């Protein structure tokens, strides 16, 4: 009896701990974190130019070159939002799916990533009063949809969503390399 109680208490505690890990409190999300400056540095470049409009339209052109569709643009605040939809199939996941199927004796069919929408959000703004220096900041993120699967006899319906910020520095470097070529200007970091 005592043992059962102890086990129960442990279970409750561990489930509470798990709850702590997955849920971030809203007030923490409105605070800068240790990663914020690093992310900012990665996502931002400076250009010595007066022409904000040119910078913005060149950014749109680069995004188009990368296969994005521009969805929203507000020139007054130098804002662009663009998306592209692509397949999210990866061979690794299919192999994992096969082994999971094999090892669970055909009871578990793991859902794999099927489709994804990659989105980019860009802001261009002057950073000094004379507006001779412009800052461009871009953020990439994606939404992934999973296919269907099966766990024991329970069918897992397709369409499960997963969202994530894309924080691969190479992606950002490539974008800014293309942008600086497009405006014939060198891009500066902080």
């Amino acid at each position, binding site marked *: 009896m005592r043992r059962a109680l102890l086990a129960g208490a442990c279970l409750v505690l561990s489930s509470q701990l798990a709850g702590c890990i997955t849920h971030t409190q809203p007030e923490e999300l409105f605070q800068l974190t240790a990663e914020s400056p690093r992310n900012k540095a990665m996502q931002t470049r400076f250009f010595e130019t007066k022409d904000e409009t040119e910078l913005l339209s060149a950014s749109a052109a680069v995004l188009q070159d990368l296969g994005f569709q521009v969805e929203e643009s507000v020139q007054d605040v130098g804002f662009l*939002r663009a998306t592209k939809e692509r397949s999210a199939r990866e061979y690794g996941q299919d192999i994992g799916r096969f082994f999971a199927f094999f090892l669970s004796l055909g009871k578990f069919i793991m859902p794999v990533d099927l489709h994804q929408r990659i989105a980019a959000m860009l802001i261009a703004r002057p950073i000094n009063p004379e507006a001779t220096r412009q800052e461009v*900041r871009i953020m990439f993120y994606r939404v992934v949809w999973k296919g269907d699967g099966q766990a024991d006899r329970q069918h897992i319906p397709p369409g499960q969503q997963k969202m994530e910020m894309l924080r691969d520095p190479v992606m950002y470097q490539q974008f800014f390399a293309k942008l600086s070529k497009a405006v014939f200007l060198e891009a500066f970091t902080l």
Partner: protein
Amino acid sequence: MTRRAVWESIVLAGVLLVQGCVAPQPSQDLLAPTEAQMKIRSVQTRAFDVKDRQLAMRGVIAALQDLGFIIERANEPLGLVTAARFAEPNFYDVLGVTVTVRPQAEGRMLIRANAIYNNKPIEDPKVYQNFFATLERSLFIAKE
């Protein structure tokens, strides 16, 4: 006797059903301002010494970006910015925020933020304090 009991129970069930159909009447003061509303509005609003609305808006956008928000919509003439972010490290909870920038008096801007967490409004003053602290820094840098 049993027949009567059956009839009685049918009538009773009918009465209960009809009662269930009556919708609760909305009270007269449904849209009247309450004290809690005034309080939450004062928590969500802050005035800043910025002359230019566009400058204030750009400051708001920069602050939201620093906090990792994705800007979804911006409307310059109305001074409106809508943004959202995932409650990292989990990507299932979503935090949304709408910020409005309105000129209050000469050289002063009134900035109001409404935040929602998974479609529930946030009423915790600490959330807004944290946001305005970041915004203040961003506006101060923009002014220099």
